[in-house]
């Protein structure tokens, strides 16, 4: 931006005057935007360069698996996909319970590339989809901001902010193949189209907005945010007395087409007309008709009769509509609010009522430092930007204000919703910063015609003339301009420093916090070289290669998608978490004694049990640390059989050492985690590095399952569920028999002692 304005005074002025200037600026703009897009893509490639082209985390593994299914079996099979390899024995109607936008997008790219004979591996497309779309997001935020601000630099600033803001990078690094990867682009672009539609009152832009809204619905559950934000915008505009045919045309076009589009997604289906979350859009649609009608009537009737008519009409309609809504909700025609929605208003709600939602870390309320961590200087430019919107409060600025308020609230409630806040923060910050730059980064002195009225206003200010007609007070002060080169240099220098710091911060955060695939753990060897701890894949690949293709694997739901994706084996529960009872069943099997767990596992045809154990390496994200959630979720269904209290010591501590309560020590999870672990250490010195406690000298013994595989660093342990005993004994008896006489003698001695006491 600086380079665009600076050479004005030089000899090359030919390029900056008239038609040529327009072309030059356009070209510069395109080059800058391309560079920004390239930066956005490049800054997300840390993990590919450091590790490899790999799908990250948990959910992306499912999306990846679904994409592979789509590519292999075609669209219609994908649409009708019933997946019998998850949620054994229930299965999952996957085709009808997912948002297909992401998979279809990568599938389309895959086919398009093959059409020009570029047979790229589908994995690489999936890995690089998010960075690619973040380049588009940067472009979309350029468009959106350009609509909102007159400043030539605001759009470009918004684009670069959007390109490198960690709040967005957190969900769009290479390999993070999740719905958000494309959804944020769609969100911003839909907003742009909406603003465009409202500004121009154009059916075409409204239809485009509806189209992209439909795409958004197919891609992410967060589409509800748009579904509520656009009606709210329209509603606020009506309340501000800004009803116009432009608004009417754009909203009705968007709503009618967008709702139809959204209903094409099987997972959404009839929700847009039945669930409470979508009612505001429908309500505003109705309201607009009424307002439009009233507007028409007003032109026909004298004002007094009109006033009366209006009042009665508003009252009657409000009462009828509200009554209808309540009635339909109570009767069940309109689905009541879902639990996830309640937890948006009451952060404690989930903890009490839905432990499965509360157990996910990204559903926790946001900590204050997270805002600075994810947005750095943008977070303090953000209010300034919102204030700028108030200064010229046109329809589109109203939108930014509403968006800002809503997104700020939601981002405070749930960590993952930081994602929806980031675009508006980038836009507002860009508007604020561009204002500063436009004012201070001018080479020449302010021109005379601007100077004259400014002195006038200064006089006027002193006198505070009351008679001046003004729309808003903030729009009163005309632009003055800066004369002192000193202050120009200082401000410009300061802003440059801030921007550089911002870039450094973003790079640092991206590199350190958001670029770990979490499937692979990296550590440093003493000589500084990188050592990769690849236990997950070691174990998953072992499962994939050396077990029956239909061997059922039981594990906690966190690993379900990874097992499905990497080990390619059926699982009992996975990250879809659609059936709480099934998850609680697994929780019960894990937290109960072997005698209780074994029948559960037999009933579910479990062949292998997989646990994650970090005690050897000090890997804190292991199953013993997640164990309390398993207990809680199981307790929710079987309060009599699993009790959280039993797993704490009498002093309320969660322990794994000698003082661990019997319920803990006898639980299958505890036994599987620590089985044979003590043999790695000298007698009695087994140490758990995560909990930092010394384990009992006597390790746990297993009778119904046997160790099948343990990965190199013991992170993943796989146990095989034993078949029924050939002689019909219980496994405990069989185990005792195998050990021989020792056990019998012990029993006898015990008997004798009891006799003596008697």
């Amino acid at each position, binding site marked *: 931006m600086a380079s665009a304005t600076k050479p004005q005074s030089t000899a090359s002025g030919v390029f900056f005057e008239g038609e040529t200037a327009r072309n030059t600026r356009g070209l510069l703009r395109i080059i800058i935007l391309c560079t920004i897009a390239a930066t956005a893509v490049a800054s997300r490639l840390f993990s590919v360069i450091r*590790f*490899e*082209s*790999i799908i990250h985390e948990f959910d992306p593994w499912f999306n990846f698996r679904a994409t592979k299914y789509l590519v292999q079996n075609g669209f219609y099979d994908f649409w009708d996909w019933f997946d019998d390899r998850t949620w054994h024995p229930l299965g999952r109607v996957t085709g009808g319970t997912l948002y297909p936008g992401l998979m279809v997008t990568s599938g389309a790219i895959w086919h398009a590339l093959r059409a*020009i*004979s*570029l*047979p790229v591996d589908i994995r690489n497309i999936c890995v690089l989809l998010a960075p690619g779309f973040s380049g588009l997001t940067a472009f979309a935020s350029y468009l959106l901001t350009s609509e909102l601000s007159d400043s030539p630099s605001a759009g470009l600033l918004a684009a670069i902010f959007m390109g490198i803001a960690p709040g967005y990078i957190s969900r769009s690094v290479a390999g993070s193949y999740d719905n958000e990867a494309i959804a944020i682009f769609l969100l911003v672009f839909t907003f742009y189209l909406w603003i465009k539609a409202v500004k*121009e009152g154009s059916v075409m832009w409204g239809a485009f907005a509806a189209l992209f809204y439909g795409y958004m619905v197919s891609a992410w559950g967060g589409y509800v945010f748009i579904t509520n934000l656009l009606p709210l915008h329209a509603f606020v505009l009506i309340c501000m007395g800004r009803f116009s045919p432009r608004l009417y045309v754009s909203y009705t076009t968007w709503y009618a087409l967008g709702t139809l589009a959204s209903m094409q997604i099987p997972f959404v289906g009839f929700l847009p007309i039945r669930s409470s979350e979508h009612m505001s859009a429908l309500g505003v649609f109705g309201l607009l008709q009424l307002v439009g009608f009233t507007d028409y009537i007003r032109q026909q009737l004298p004002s007094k009769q009109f006033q009366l008519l209006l009042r009665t009409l508003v009252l009657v309609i409000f009462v009828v509509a509200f009554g209808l809504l309540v009635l339909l909700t109570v009767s069940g025609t309109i689905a009541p609010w879902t639990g996830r929605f309640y937890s948006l208003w009451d952060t404690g709600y989930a903890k009490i009522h839905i432990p499965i939602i509360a157990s996910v870390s990204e559903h926790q309320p946001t900590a204050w430092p997270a805002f600075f961590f994810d947005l750095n200087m943008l977070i303090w430019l953000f209010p300034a930007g919102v204030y700028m919107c108030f200064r010229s409060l046109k329809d589109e600025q109203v939108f930014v204000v509403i968006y800002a308020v809503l997104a700020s609230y939601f981002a405070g409630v749930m960590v993952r919703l930081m994602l929806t806040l980031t675009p508006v923060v980038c836009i507002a910050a860009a508007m604020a910063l561009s204002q500063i730059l436009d004012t201070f980064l001018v080479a020449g002195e302010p021109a005379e015609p601007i100077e004259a009225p400014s002195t006038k206003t200064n006089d006027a200010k002193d006198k505070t003339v009351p008679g001046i007609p003004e729309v808003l007070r903030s729009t009163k002060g005309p632009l003055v301009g800066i004369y002192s080169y000193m202050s120009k240099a200082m401000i410009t220098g300061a802003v440059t420093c801030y921007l550089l710091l911002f870039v450094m911060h973003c790079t640092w955060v991206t590199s350190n916090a958001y670029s770990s695939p979490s499937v*692979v753990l990296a550590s440093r060897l003493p000589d500084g070289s990188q050592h*990769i701890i*690849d236990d997950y*894949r*070691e174990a*998953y*690949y*072992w499962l*994939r*290669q*050396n077990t029956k293709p239909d061997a059922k694997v039981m594990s906690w739901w966190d690993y379900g998608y990874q097992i499905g994706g*990497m080990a390619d084996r059926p699982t009992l529960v996975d990250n879809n978490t659609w059936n709480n009872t099934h998850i609680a069943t697994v929780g019960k099997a894990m937290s109960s004694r072997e005698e209780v767990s074994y029948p559960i596992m037999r009933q579910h045809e479990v062949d292998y049990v997989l646990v994650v154990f970090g005690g050897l390496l000090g890997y804190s994200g292991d199953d013993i640390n997640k164990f309390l959630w398993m207990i809680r979720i199981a307790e929710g269904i079987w309060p009599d059989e699993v009790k959280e209290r039993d797993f704490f010591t009498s002093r309320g501590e969660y322990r794994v050492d000698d003082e661990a309560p019997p319920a803990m020590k006898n639980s299958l999870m505890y036994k599987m985690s620590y089985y*044979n672990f003590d*043999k*790695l250490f000298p007698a009695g010195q087994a140490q758990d590095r995560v909990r930092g406690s010394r384990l009992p000298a006597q390790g746990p013994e297993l009778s119904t399952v*046997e*160790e*099948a*595989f*343990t*990965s*190199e660093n*013991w992170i993943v342990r796989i146990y*095989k569920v034993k078949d029924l005993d050939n002689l019909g004994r219980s496994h405990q008896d069989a185990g005792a028999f195998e050990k021989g006489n020792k056990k019998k003698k012990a029993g006898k001695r015990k008997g004798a002692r009891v006799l003596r006491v008697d």
Partner: protein
Amino acid sequence: MRLLLPWALLGSAVFSLADPSANAAQDSQKTVDSAAAPPQHFRNINLVRNINLEKSYARETINVVVENIDSKPQSEYYFPFERGQIKRIGGLEAKDKKQPERTGFTAEIAALDQTSATEYYKITFPAALKPNEQITLSITYVSLQSLDPLPAKIEQSDKQYVRHGFSAYAPSAYTTLKQKTKLKLPTTDVPDAVKLAASLNAEGKEDPQRQGTTFTYGPYGELPAGAVEEVSVRYEFTKPLTHSTRLERDIEVSHWGGNIAFEERHWLTNRAAELKNQFSRVIHQQLQYYNPPTSALKELKFPLAVGSMDPYFTDDIGNVSTSRFRSNAREANLELKPRYPLFGKWNYSFRVGWNADLAKYLRGAGGDKFVLKVPFFEGPKQAEGVAYEKVITRVILPEGSTNVEYTTSLPLVDESVTKHYTFMDTAGRTMLELTALNVVDDQRDIQLVISYDYPFAARFRKPISIFAAVAAVFAITAVVRSLDVSIGRKTKSS
């Protein structure tokens, strides 16, 4: 016989359902039609068989003096195998022992009686053997999957013993006057070697004779064609029985880049004894300090050609970080560790690839003609040997190359020339696909020589087609932009 035939066919159909890969291997082996049973044109005067069991497969060498007892010159010598065994026999070749440089011997599977329990290889001499003349044949072959661990299940730290079953009488389709069989074992720890009655022995000695790691069965006197005396030896072999069910190899030639890219996809399994109890990481880690011999496959070593570069080692779920590449002016060794040690009956599939300078493999043969010389397959080189059931080598030549011809000394069962589309090809690259069965790692030096024509103009096909495509996009954009698609008349006021 006629009645039985359909049943036999039905049986084979059922068999193919049960075990498609094994049967496919048999079916695809090259066969030639011949008479019902080999005619008794020959007599084996003296036969010495050497069975080398030092690796994880058996390598047999039969040196036999053959005499034509027919009245006419004969050139087709039949060599029998039991049905089922023949599809595990690889690399069978015959030579004239006295004149090793003499070429022209061919060996093919002869499709004889479908219902017979015996199948034959037909060896054709370069020149027919006149009546009463003799020739000293040297027949070598490897027998895959011929070692079976016994006991079939062992503890993780146990020694492994394998059993090799064979006939003390060498297989022959002709009467044999004198013969003996020598076994070369890798160890002196041989708990079992089936003893034969001394009466069978021509010299009346104890049978077998033992000398260090060598066992000798025989000599035996005159035996009719097809005589069998089943014996077996069981010996210690605490090494992995590495078996590759399939190896796919791609060689991609790029004249533009001056690069040749190799990629091998392996499907390995360890045929060693299964673990009696399940795998225990504790025992594995404790044993690692002493590093005793084990039946687990822990490491694979690929000695690549000097100058190989950019190696990669991945499997179905991504990069495997446990590899090491040592490359200097003298050697380029790729050392791979599978994600987990492969114990008995465990599988592992992976892919490795590397690049090399094309100039080392390709030379121009005047005009548009080029000659490419590459190893048919590389694969790991292990002390205990690796056996491959099926090797498929695909050579992808540059787009527009024609007139592809190849030579290799490895017996092939299939060949085809097709098109391969990648990286914005318009006409497709010429791809030569060759398949070989039952190959062992000793043969990894066998070269494949390919000659092809690559016209100079073909090099510019891609740049021109891409330029044309981009130009077309611009032209279409220009046309579309100039169209007026607005509805209604243009008005100045909004």
